[in-house]
């Protein structure tokens, strides 16, 4: 790579791992999480831009999902602080994180099988007074809000082409439809930042296209999106910004086409993906380039020893 300083409209200053953003929505500092002797996450500094689709990529075991779980309160860090829209969210329970407007989905879909699709949706809504044990007993206290959120749920279901399924049990949906349901359900609370954990995993190509479309639409509605993905192909089409993790650290970040050519990224992917196509990257032959990088790396290592 050249030594010239690269800039980008989302970034305040030079582009690089842990760079400052013009308008960050999440700022994380010194976040670490160890499992026994293994350091799963060790992020020194990272900022996630607002009103953009950010992809968090990295090979298997890079700590993406663990980092995701930490940010959303589903796991507790050993050290670290992070803030969401200026409020510190470190060690805040998951349900409070969600109420602040940072709503997540799961890699393995968690549709609530023995509830109807519509009920799944209604669960996503906020400010329903009937969710209190005592007000629940008196229907007039919550039926108005129920009507409002039902209308909203039906609108969202129509958008995700699930409306005709609304009375079916969620367990009867196909894997891809469950992904759609989970995304739609997360939207019920009008999140500020929506966090999708591998939204495209295990989904057929046709549905992948429609999922990508939906994600783009979230951005056009003013939401910020952060999604985890380990397949670089998917990322290129929709993300504005890519953060690459490997062995728990942020090793690179930048706009997608640039990141794909970053030697650190190729390096990170080489171990896990040495026998697969890294994607049709523009410019030089990626395979040869990757081999060169690997050779350099090996030489450096030998020199160090």
């Amino acid at each position, binding site marked *: 790579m050249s030594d010239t300083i690269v800039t980008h409209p989302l970034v305040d200053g030079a582009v690089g791992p842990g760079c400052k953003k013009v308008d960050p929505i999440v700022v994380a500092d010194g976040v670490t999480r160890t499992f026994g002797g293994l350091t799963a996450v060790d992020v020194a500094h990272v900022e996630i831009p607002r009103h953009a689709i950010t992809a968090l990529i990295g090979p298997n075991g890079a700590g993406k999902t663990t980092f995701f779980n930490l940010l959303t309160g589903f796991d507790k860090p050993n050290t670290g602080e992070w803030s969401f829209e200026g409020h510190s969210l470190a060690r805040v329970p998951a349900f409070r994180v969600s109420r602040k407007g940072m709503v997540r989905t799961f890699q393995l879909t968690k549709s*609530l099988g023995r509830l109807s699709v519509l009920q799944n949706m209604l*669960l996503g809504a906020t400010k329903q007074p009937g*969710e209190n044990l005592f007000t629940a007993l008196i229907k007039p206290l919550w039926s108005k809000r129920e009507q409002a959120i039902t209308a909203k749920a039906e609108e969202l279901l129509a958008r995700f082409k699930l409306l005709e399924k609304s009375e079916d049990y969620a367990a009867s949906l196909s894997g891809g439809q469950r992904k759609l349901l989970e995304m739609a359900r997360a939207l019920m609370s009008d999140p500020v930042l929506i966090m999708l954990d591998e939204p495209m995993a295990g989904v057929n190509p046709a549905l992948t296209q429609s999922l990508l479309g939906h994600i783009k639409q979230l951005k056009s509605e003013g939401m910020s999106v952060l999604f985890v993905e380990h397949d670089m192909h998917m990322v290129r089409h929709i993300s504005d910004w890519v953060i690459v993790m490997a062995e728990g650290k942020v090793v690179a970040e930048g706009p997608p086409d640039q990141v794909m050519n970053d030697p650190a990224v190729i390096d990170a992917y080489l171990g896990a993906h040495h026998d697969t196509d890294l994607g049709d990257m523009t410019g030089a032959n990626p395979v040869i380039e990757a081999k060169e990088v690997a050779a350099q790396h090996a030489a450096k290592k030998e020199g160090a020893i």
Partner: protein
Amino acid sequence: MDWGQILDTAAGELLSPVTAAYALAAIGIGVHFGYAGLLNFGQAGFMAIGAYGFVVPTLLFDFPVWAAFLTSIAASVLFAFLLGIPTLRLRADYLAIVTIASAEIVRYVVSTTGLTDVTGGAAGLSGFNGSFTALNPFADGIYGFGPWTFTANQLWIRVVGWSLVAIASVLVYLLMRSPWGRVVKGIREDEDAVRSLGKNVYAYKMQALVLGGVFGSLAGVIYVLPRAVQPANYGTTLTFFIWTMLLLGGAATIWGPIVGAMIFATLLTLSDGILRGLISADIITFISGTQAGQIRFMIIGAVLMLLVIFRPQGIFGNKKELSFNV
């Protein structure tokens, strides 16, 4: 062999206070397991807490009936918190282990000789029913017809018992059609998903545990009101009888626990009557009357196995709901 007598006794069991107590306790674990997915294997413990919470203050401090009911409820709420605070943040199985163990602890504590002055030890307590009978609004006489012929006092306890069952059922119905019920059912399906949607899962689980526990304690009161408190009654067998009734009727249903309890109690009495009748008529000669008491549990066990295999959703449950592997 007097078939009329056997059927009469069995039919009488339909409305007996014990059946009402069973139904109430089954509604309680229906809230726990059927709706919230909490594995409470210590409902007998809640019943014991309820029974002693009613009887001990009545005998020791002459509490009026309403106050004794309140102490009984308060004791079960406390017990639910004691069980829930350490376990509800953990996986579902931990609650199961803790409840089954603590129900046994309760039983051993109330039967220790050291506490004989308070709990009556292994012999239990009696003679506490006076203040309840004194409240009886029915004039002396015989009420009802056929197998359901009661004295004024028998009628009084039945009216109170079944009214409590009705109140509990209406309460559960109102709650489960509400958004509160939706959250609780969501927790049964997947806690993390509900958590990610901004609901305080721990608080909801605690509320469900307390609610079902209170129904259990009221069941304990109804169970002992017509007789004496016997600590030996609150073993794990009682818990599993109640589980059987719940699953027989259908776990996440309103009518399931009530009808399940009625069928179970009636079958138990009916099989006992038939077996004893056959023995006294010398049709069955190879077992004794005492053995018959045990054999009916085997027969009921076999019937229930067939039921669970061929109708796992219970009588009122929705077959469609069970056809998914979730």
